[in-house]
C-alpha cells in the first residue's frame, strides 16, 4: 500500500509539472506529460483499482526529467556544474526507456500486440533512441520557429543523443533483469507485467 502511495506522490509531481508546462506552452513537454500521464492512469482506470498504480520507482524515473526541466534550481546547477546537463540527459534517457517499457506492457494488456521478452527489450532500446531523435528534431524546429535555439551546436545535440543511446541500452538490460529479480508477490500485486512474466516462467 505504501508503494502505491509513493507512486501517487510521484504522479502528482508529473501532473503538476504537466500543468505548468501547459501554461507555458512548452509543446514537447506537454506531449511528454500527457503521454506519460495517460500510461499512468490507464491501468488504474481500467481495473478501477487505485492500488494498481505502476511501481513507484518507475513513476519516479518517468517524472524526473520534467521536474528537472521546470525547476529553477536545476537551471542554476546547469550553469554552475559542468556535469549537470549530462545528468539531466541521462535522467531523460531513463524516463524515455521507462515509458517504452510501460508501452510494451500496456500494449500487451489492451491490444492484440504480442511480444516476447527479447523483442520487448529491443523495443525499449529502439523506442528510447527514436523518441530522443524526434525530440532533438522537435527542439530544433521549435528553435527555428521561435528564433531561440536551446541546443545550438551539433556537438550538444549529439551529446544528448549519446546519453540517450547509452541510457536506453542500459535500461533495456535493466528491465529484463528487473522483473526476474522482483518478488512474486509484488509482481502479482501490480498485475501488469504479464508479458514479461510469461517469458520468465517459460525460461524456468
Amino acid at each position, binding site marked *: 500500500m505504501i508503494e502505491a502511495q509513493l507512486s501517487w506522490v510521484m504522479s502528482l509531481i508529473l501532473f503538476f509539472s504537466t500543468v505548468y508546462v501547459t501554461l507555458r506552452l512548452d509543446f514537447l513537454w506537454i506531449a511528454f506529460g500527457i503521454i506519460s500521464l495517460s500510461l499512468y492512469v490507464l491501468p488504474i482506470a481500467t481495473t478501477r483499482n487505485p492500488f494498481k498504480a505502476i511501481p513507484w520507482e518507475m513513476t519516479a524515473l518517468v517524472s524526473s526529467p520534467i521536474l528537472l526541466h521546470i525547476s529553477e534550481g536545476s537551471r542554476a546547477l546547469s550553469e554552475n556544474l559542468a556535469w549537470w546537463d549530462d545528468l539531466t540527459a541521462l535522467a531523460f534517457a531513463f524516463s524515455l526507456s521507462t515509458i517504452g517499457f510501460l508501452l510494451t506492457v500496456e500494449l500487451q494488456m489492451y491490444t492484440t500486440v*504480442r511480444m*516476447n521478452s527479447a523483442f520487448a527489450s529491443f523495443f525499449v532500446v529502439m523506442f528510447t*533512441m527514436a523518441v530522443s*531523435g524526434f525530440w532533438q*528534431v522537435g527542439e530544433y524546429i521549435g528553435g527555428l520557429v521561435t528564433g531561440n535555439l536551446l541546443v545550438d551546436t551539433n556537438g550538444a545535440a549529439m551529446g544528448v543523443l549519446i546519453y540517450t543511446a547509452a541510457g536506453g541500452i542500459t535500461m533495456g538490460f535493466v528491465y529484463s533483469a528487473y522483473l526476474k529479480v522482483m518478488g512474486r508477490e509484488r509482481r502479482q500485486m501490480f498485475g501488469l507485467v504479464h508479458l514479461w512474466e510469461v517469458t520468465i516462467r517459460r525460461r524456468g
Partner: protein
Amino acid sequence: MMQLGMVAVAVGGIVTVNHTWVPAALVSLLVSAVPTILRRDLRVVLPAELNFWIVLALFLHVVGGYSGFYDTLPGWDHLTHAMSASLVAAIGFVVVVALDKYVESIFLPPLFLAFFIVMFTMSVGVVWELMEYAIDQLTGSMLQYSLNDSMIDLLFDLFGGFMVAIVGTYYLRHTTQEHFVESLQLDEAKGRIGRVVRRRRWPYK
C-alpha cells in the same frame, strides 16, 4: 547495370589516383551481391523491388561520393539519406513481418507494424548520426557540417520511414501476409539451415 557503375567507379578511382572512394565502391559492390548470395545459398528470395532499391541506394551513394555530388549538388545528401533510410525501413519491415510469422510469441497488427517501422527507422537514423559524429571526432573529417545538417538528415530519415510504413501496410493489405512471407521462401531456407547444422553436428554425437 548499377553494379557495373560501381565497378566503373572503383576502376576509375584507381586509374585517376583518386583513391578515397575505391574502398567504398568495393564494399558497396559486395553488399549489393548479398541478395544474390542469399538466393543461391539459402534460397531466400527478397522481393525484386527491395533488391533494386538496395542496389540503387548504394549506387547513388558511391556515385555521389566519387563525382563530388555530395558537395556540389545541394539536395544530394538528403536524397541519399531518404533512400538509405527507406532501405533500412524496408529491411526492418521484412524482418519484422518474418518475426511475426515465425515466432509464435510475437503478434504485431498492421497499425503497430507501421508505428514500429517509423520508430525503427528513426532510431537507426540516430545511430547513424552518432556514427558520423564519432567518425568526425576521431578522424577530424567533416561528415556532419552543422546542426542543420544532422537535424535535416534526421528529418529525411523520418520521411523515408514514413513512406515505407505507408507503402508497407498498403502492400500487406493487398497481398496477404502469408503470401508475402512465402514469397521470401524462408521455410525452405529454414530447412536448409537446419540440414546444414545437423550435418555439421552429426559426427560429434
